């Protein structure tokens, strides 16, 4: 589903490498943690997948698209197949929970009956059906992140990328959020989550790809945060 072949990334000539010779293959339906210290290249890796940046070297394939060959005018087609969640939620403050989620479908031109059906379904998936009429500032951090997950998933993308989704949350709420991601994963969505949350990685025991100074130093099935081998 996501393949990086010998990928290196440098933002500008003379800058240090953000990623170096990364080889990675995430198969359909997998749940993968990408871990590492701040600046290790986790977010850079995710940005390559949504084509926010192009690799300096190497090849990236996502959902059947070779991103190096994808014309700029077709990038939006790729992005429709990827849901994205960020640490800072990025909700529209003037819109209710329902409107925030419906906004995606409206932007993509979905008909009204489809919006009326899919938004409540997706809110139920993240356990927010009772909060549909609330504004973001009336919700807790965990609830706001759940809205962001619902927004990312309402279009039913086959891939979900989460960049430090628990970075602003307490441990219990973080576990709830990752449990939701796990539920989404069990339904068939490929999930890649960048994090430096030790307890979450240790608790959920998924595949762990560890980055250090832009290089993959560990790729371990059902790994913990600090294990080198298992």
């Amino acid at each position, binding site marked *: 589903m996501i393949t990086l072949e010998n990928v290196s990334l440098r933002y500008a000539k003379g800058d240090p490498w953000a990623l170096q010779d990364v080889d990675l293959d995430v198969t359909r339906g997998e749940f993968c943690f990408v871990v590492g210290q701040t600046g290790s290249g986790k977010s850079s890796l995710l940005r390559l997948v949504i084509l926010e940046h192009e690799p300096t070297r190497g090849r990236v394939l996502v959902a059947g698209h070779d991103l190096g060959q994808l014309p700029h005018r077709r990038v939006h087609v790729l992005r429709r197949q*990827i849901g994205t969640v960020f640490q800072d939620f990025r909700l529209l403050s003037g819109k209710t929970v329902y409107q925030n989620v419906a906004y995606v479908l409206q932007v993509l031109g979905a008909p009204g009956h489809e919006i009326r059906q899919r938004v409540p379904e997706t809110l139920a998936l993240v356990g927010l059906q009772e909060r549909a009429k609330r504004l973001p500032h009336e919700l807790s951090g965990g609830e706001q992140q759940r809205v962001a997950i619902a927004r990312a998933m309402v279009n039913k993308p086959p891939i979900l990328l989460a960049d430090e989704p628990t970075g602003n949350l307490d441990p219990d709420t973080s576990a709830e959020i990752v449990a939701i991601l796990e539920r989404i994963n069990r339904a068939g969505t490929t999930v890649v989550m960048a994090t430096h949350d030790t307890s979450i990685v240790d608790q959920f025991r998924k595949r762990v790809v560890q980055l250090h100074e832009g290089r993959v130093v560990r790729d371990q099935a059902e790994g913990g945060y600090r294990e080198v081998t298992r």
Partner: protein
Amino acid sequence: MRPGFLLGEVANGLRRNVSMVVSVVLVTMVSLFFLGIGLLAQQQVDTAKGYWYDKVQVSIFLCTPDSTDVASCAAGAVTPEQREQIAADLEGLEPLVTQVYYESNQDAYDRFREQFRNSPVLDTIPQEAIPESFRVNLSDPSKYEVIRQAFEQAPGVESVEDQREVVDKLFTFLGVLSIGALALAVAMVGCAVLLISTAIRLTAWSRRRETAIKRMVGASAFSIYLPFVLETVVATLVGAALALGLLWATVRFGITGFLSELLAGQSGLISLVGERDLWLITPFLVGGALLLAVLTAWAALRRHVRV
């Protein structure tokens, strides 16, 4: 993006950026107003010049029943004998006189009606008040004095006028007005382009979160740009409508009203632009403004909005 949602986005954008929208409306209005004035003035010069330079250099107006206050018209309207004598005298002035055109009272009245079709005073002028005349072309227009001296006191002649001198002053004035208005219009159009570009930049900044979400979920560049472009188009259309209103008021009350009355006493002076001329340039004004607005908005979006 469905039309209902798109219109909602546009309405919301206009409401959230009222001050920028108003500034685009005003700058568009002023620039189109000056552009319109420039074009109308240009049209005025072109049509009047075409008419006069082709047809006339010197006019010998003959007496009407009302022109008894002039010594040579004391006997009233020109008689057929007097008219024939003037024609013969003109023939005798060849080769200075190259062409003579006799305009009867009916011809003059018809032409007057056509020229002053936009004037409210048209119906107050009786046909007898319009003098018949000889229109004379000279091989050397500067020798107008020869004609004047030969005919000014002649029986049956009310006056001799070098039309070219009269209209040239007006053409010069209109030419300067036209160039001035067009120069101002160019400057204002430049302002409009810069303002639209700045407005797009500020609007895009104020809506960066919405834009980022659209981009993230896979909206195409076209659908991200479209609401911004439509908002610019709405502001431009409102500005264009106001400019047309101002131009219409200027033509209706300033030209066919005030100026036409002011010039009505100067017989056969010039035909003035009217509302019909304004409607003729309207598609170019509005179409040009829209095209410029869309191109400017699109270029600004490509520069300032990442998709």
